């Protein structure tokens, strides 16, 4: 099977703090891969390095065999990698529709002159983009709220808009940072189905961070566990669950 993402001894140091230490992982095509670990373990930092928001102190990252360390985030996006944030980050003053439209930005097919003179290329592409954005909103069941301001939506809907916006970039791989955070059990269940659904519909490989164990265990085929920046385990959910290091990491976290 094809490897989509390969991290090789990826390390991130913030001054004296080693947030991630020689993290290596390989994620095959179309897999839903889970990254778990106690608070402050370095999970979000791993995401930030993959997406180009942070430059790793050392180590390599390959996306479809192409080294991507050193690329700007918008370049990584145009290669087909999209993400959501742990603390939902929508453009609060834009409408739901406009939020999704920004996802098409990197493959924009009209230029400034088309815009200022309102040439046919402008209107044509605006129309196409709006239709595609509405389709995406329909797939998250938010087509009726397209013209609402993003900040007016309830929490669960905002998550969905953020995912729709990420999908608009046309990703091959999707990174979800705690997508179920703040959701009730029903919402979490439907999110689970939703993630599987979009994986199949858009042929995605998914890497997700999640604290909700049931969620990760039932959704992910493989799980990697991070503790204090070090990968302490990797494998099938049931193996990882029994791993003494993992139990210690979590219990230690609770006692601390």
């Amino acid at each position, binding site marked *: 099977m094809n490897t989509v993402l390969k991290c090789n001894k990826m390390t991130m140091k913030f001054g004296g703090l080693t947030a991630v230490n020689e993290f290596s992982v390989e994620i095959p095509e179309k897999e839903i891969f889970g990254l778990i670990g106690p608070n402050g373990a370095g999970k979000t930092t791993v995401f930030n390095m993959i997406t180009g928001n942070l430059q790793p102190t050392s180590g390599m990252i390959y996306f479809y065999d192409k080294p991507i360390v050193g690329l700007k985030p918008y370049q990584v996006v145009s290669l087909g990698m*999209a993400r959501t944030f742990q603390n939902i980050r929508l453009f609060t003053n834009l409408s739901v529709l406009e939020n999704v439209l920004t996802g098409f*930005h990197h493959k924009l097919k009209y230029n400034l002159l088309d815009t200022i003179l309102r040439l046919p290329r402008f209107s044509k592409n605006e129309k196409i983009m709006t239709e595609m954005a509405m389709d995406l909103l329909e797939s998250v069941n938010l087509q009726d709220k397209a013209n609402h301001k993003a900040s007016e939506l309830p929490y669960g809907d905002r998550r969905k808009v953020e995912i729709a916006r990420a999908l608009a970039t046309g990703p091959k791989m999707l990174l979800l940072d705690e997508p179920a955070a703040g959701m009730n059990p029903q919402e979490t269940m439907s999110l689970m189905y939703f993630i599987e659904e979009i994986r199949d519909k858009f042929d995605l490989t998914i890497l997700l961070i999640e604290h909700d164990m049931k969620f990760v265990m039932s959704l992910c085929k493989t799980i990697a566990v991070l503790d204090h920046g070090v990968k302490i385990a990797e494998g099938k959910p049931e193996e990882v669950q029994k791993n003494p290091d993992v139990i210690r990491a979590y219990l230690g976290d609770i006692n601390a």
Partner: protein
Amino acid sequence: MKRNQILTILSIILLFLFLWYANNNLSAYYIRILNNTAIFLMLAASYNLINGVTGQFSLEPNGFTAIGAYTAAILTLTPAQKEAMFIISPMVPWLQNLHMSFFPALIVAGIVTAIVGFLLGFPVFRVRGDYLAIVTLGFGLTIRVVSNNTISITNGPLGLKGIENYTNLWWTWGFAVVTLIIIMRLINSEFGRAMKAVRDDEDAAIAMGINTFKIKMIAFVTSAFFEGVAGGLLAHLITTISPTLFTFFLTFNLLIIIVIGGLGSMTGTAIATILVVWGSEILRFVEQPMHIFNFTIPGIPGMRMVIFSILLIVIMIFAREGIMGQKEFSWDSLFKLFKTKKVANK
């Protein structure tokens, strides 16, 4: 869609009919204020594009207006005029002999200012952080010192005199309308959405594949272009320019306008421009000596600025959104308003 376009064109025709009437019937004083209104509208709309729409706090208008004013003036002054005027030190020959008519001079003024905007923006937007305000503030102060000392280009403290009074209502309002149309079209496009995205959450914008550097540059250079043209219009309205003319007060005035109108709203900017320009004419009396019963209060120059500063503070505390917030006027919303009123009346 069609209906709205027709309505927009009709209102522009109406505006120019009013200007035609004003031109023939109103006194020079009122025509002057109308010209000022249009120039301020251009400046405020440009200023709001970078500050309100893109969210990059900047203090560039006085410096950029100065560049535009000097550029346009140098270009329309005849070689003979320049020779007679530059008495301290003669003008550099290639500028001395450069001469253009009004319209191309304004466009060149815009382009030169846009290039300055590009050169300032380039290093600033390469790094994250709020350096733009400090850099543009410094630029505004520097430009005054520079224009005072580059005597063979700007004629130093003597300034430029005898600039032809080309600017009239047609030029100012023509440019103001074009500026607003272009800026509105920019805002209502993917470029505008990206600008607002940068303002709302820069990290998320980056994560969505937006080249934030490029987007900020587009906004800033566009602002610079129109501020340069506005400077050129101003120079040919007041016919005499000198280094002391383009002070920080100009920028401050514009800041008040865009805050009152609503950061990010061009409709708000238009309303606030009218309020502030005409308001400051009405408030002229506060700077005159006043007689109340037997007391005489001497006129205090700058009193209007104090009033506007207080107004700004009050708005910042009680009405952060300004008049329009980030909303824009649209024909659709107007019709909706009428419809709901009608329903309510029944």
